[in-house]
């Protein structure tokens, strides 16, 4: 088994505020939103093997996502055409010290429209308060 395919030993959390800003900003019936909702159900259901990848602490274009990992959406797909979207999570700590993967961004990995922000740019803005 690919070591990156195992289940992470910490909980994944989708907080209401982040979910609203990242996913519920989209039309309720849009295919993009439907895919995000489906992926979340799969993650929370625990039935899917998750292909986690580490984000770049110092990436191209000034995108800095230290402490973050990602999943391609739809889950289980790899190429940009098969999995055009992504979730980004930050490792966070609850007041009682419990570690969790906190969802921080959803969006396109490689948008065709050059004006559209990538999921990585959205995650950077969530972390740093401004786009790179």
């Amino acid at each position: 088994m690919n070591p990156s395919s195992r289940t992470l030993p910490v909980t994944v959390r989708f907080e209401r505020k982040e979910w609203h800003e990242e996913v519920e900003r989209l039309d309720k019936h849009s295919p993009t939103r439907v895919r995000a909702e489906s992926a979340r159900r799969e993650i929370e259901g625990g039935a899917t093997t998750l292909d986690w990848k580490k984000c770049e602490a110092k990436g191209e274009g000034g995108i800095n996502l230290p402490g973050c990992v990602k999943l391609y959406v739809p889950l289980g797909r790899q190429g940009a055409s098969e999995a055009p979207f992504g979730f980004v999570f930050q490792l966070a700590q609850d007041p009682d010290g419990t570690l969790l993967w906190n969802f921080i961004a959803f969006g396109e990995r490689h948008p065709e429209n050059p004006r559209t922000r990538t999921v990585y740019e959205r995650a950077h803005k969530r972390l740093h308060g401004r786009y790179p």
Partner: protein
Amino acid sequence: MATVARKLDLRVGELVEIDGRRYEVVPDKTGGLTIEPPIAPISELYENRGMKPAALEDFERLTADYPTDGEG
């Protein structure tokens, strides 16, 4: 009848409210400005919840064998 454009003197980071909805002024990637629904900074959200980013050591321990893809 010609439409007269309203000129707005806005800066990156400012919030505007249109028809009851709030938007943030952000760069549009082509040298101009645009508005979009705001993205709340994680620091504010964590402060409200009593949360904080985990230590780098914890992150490295949990993701030591996780690949990167060079995308971001």
